[in-house]
């Protein structure tokens, strides 16, 4: 065999390389996986749209006929006249109680556990495990707790089966979620930032206030809003505490109360009385739509605030 000239040797090498790196077979497993992932995403979206479509179509005629009147009327027994004001009031009280009780307490506890507590000590490890467990306790159990503590023991303050008692119960329910998400946000703060604070002579608290909390704010906010949304949507504990579903002409903080999820639960099961234009189920759908809008509003606000904080901390 004749010796190859240098250029022919180069051509041969190029040929081998080309054969080696040229596409031969389709990546079947990869494509199958991609299709599977796409399907999963589409199904998730479909579920969401089906839910929205169902709620909107069910409530459309009632809302277009009654409009704001549906939002401002009290509950009652005539499906043509009832509204959700009594429930909306209770739901707002619950949201406010979570905001002023659970969030400051939860964030404070998280700051203590992350920044001050001795992580390796057995007691603190036990506390953290317990907080995680608390977050997994079913809502009904919190209802029992709230019933005993807030409607019975503390009835001189809460007025018994009241919006305040319901709000406090919901605050306790979401407290572990607030603590856990806040702890995670605080743990994600780079240690260099703390060093920087201490290095210029900031005290531990000054460092937390000026550097750790602002940096952790987006994460804390996300947890906070999730917890409020959860509290607004829960019905089970409120049933145990004793939310009213029949007549409730007056709204008060310490008197009888109701909440939007309770109304949805009640109205869904009631049959349409004769001679009435609308069914209770239509009211239930309309109430659901109002609840969805409230939750959507909270989420949107949280996303907006989180993005603002994140932009600030990345220096834009």
């Amino acid at each position, binding site marked *: 065999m004749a010796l190859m000239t240098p250029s022919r040797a180069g051509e041969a090498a190029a040929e081998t390389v080309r054969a080696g790196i040229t596409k031969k077979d389709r990546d079947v497993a990869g494509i199958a996986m991609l299709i599977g992932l796409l399907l999963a995403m589409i199904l998730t979206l479909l579920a969401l749209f089906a839910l929205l479509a169902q709620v909107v179509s069910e409530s459309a005629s009632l809302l277009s006929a009654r409009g704001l009147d549906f939002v401002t009327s009290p509950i009652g027994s005539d499906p043509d006249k009832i509204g959700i004001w009594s429930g909306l009031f209770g739901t707002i009280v619950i949201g406010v109680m979570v905001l002023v009780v659970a969030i400051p307490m939860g964030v404070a506890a998280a700051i203590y556990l992350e920044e001050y507590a*001795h*992580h*390796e000590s057995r007691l603190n490890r036990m506390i953290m495990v317990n907080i995680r467990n608390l977050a997994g306790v079913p809502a009904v159990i919190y209802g029992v707790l709230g019933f005993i503590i807030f409607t019975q023991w503390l009835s001189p303050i809460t007025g018994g089966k009241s919006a305040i008692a319901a709000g406090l119960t919901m605050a306790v329910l979401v407290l572990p979620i607030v603590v856990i998400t806040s702890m995670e946000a605080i743990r994600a703060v*780079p240690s*260099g*930032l*703390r*060093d*920087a*604070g*201490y*290095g*210029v*002579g*900031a*005290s*531990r608290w*000054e460092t937390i206030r*000026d*550097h750790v909390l*602002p*940096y952790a704010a987006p994460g804390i906010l996300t947890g906070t809003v999730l917890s409020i949304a959860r509290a607004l949507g829960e019905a089970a504990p409120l049933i145990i505490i004793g939310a009213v579903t029949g007549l409730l002409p007056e709204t008060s903080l310490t008197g009888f109360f109701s909440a939007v999820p309770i109304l949805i639960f009640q109205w869904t099961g009631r049959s349409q009385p004769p001679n009435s234009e609308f069914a209770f189920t239509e009211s239930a759908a309309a109430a659901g739509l109002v609840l969805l809008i409230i939750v959507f509003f909270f989420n949107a606000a949280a996303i907006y605030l989180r993005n603002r904080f994140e932009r*600030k*901390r*990345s*220096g*834009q």
Partner: protein
Amino acid sequence: MSNVSDRIGFLERGLDMSDALKPAVHPTAGETSERTAEVVFDLQQLSVLYGDFRAVRDGTLQIRDQQITAFIGPSGCGKTTMLRCFNRMNDFIPTARVEGKVLYHGVDLYDPAVNSTEVRRRIGMVFQKPNPFPKSIYDNVAYGPRLLGVKKRSQLDEVVERSLQGAALWDEVKDRLKESGLGLSGGQQQRLCIARAIAVEPDVILMDEPCSALDPIATGRIEELMAEMKTDYTIVIVTHNMQQAARVSDRTAFFTTEINPDSDRRTGILVEYDRTDKIFSNPADQRTEDYVTGRFG
């Protein structure tokens, strides 16, 4: 003595320190007399323990005013751990404790009566990775003085300008003080951290491998800056870079590790502490010689 007590006095008197950053007359290496310069730190048999584990021991050395002292040695030899005792940064590690004494101008820093926050205001620190606050350049520098209670805008403006000039950063950033410190390059960020540290007029600046994340040009600028700063501050620098120690420091402490007899964990020990030229040309200990000549693992 008067020199140092004056400088500490700035903090008590507020931030009227117009004469503190006078154009420096640079003494050449070795010119600062070892006999007259005051002892700033006097370490006596200092050990740092994490739980039962002794991370570093035998820290006995004196650090003098207006000198740059370098800590060199292989990884894990406890140089950074020991440096962080100088301003009680180890306080934030719950299991860490010290044995022996760290005397700062004769005062035991680990005396229970000592307020560690006050200590850190006098003994500033620059870290391995540039860590500006996610704030504007101005607010980064003004943060320390604000903590000390300086509120007047004109006074803050003055401190910010002087500190940035002191860190050789002013000319590069004077037109964008309102922009985030995170938008600067790595070397600029580290000089911003130096400006932030000197804004509270510390007595000492501790530097923990300040150039390890920087390129050679940025490193060169920081080294020039250190040479200028040493007329006003006592500087202690931890470095992995032996050439850097040889270039910038007046005295060098060499640390190494030794295997514990009872476990396989290594404890850092101070081997030798002397004038930098002596450490690099004629060290007394064989281990030092092996390390500085590159024969060490």
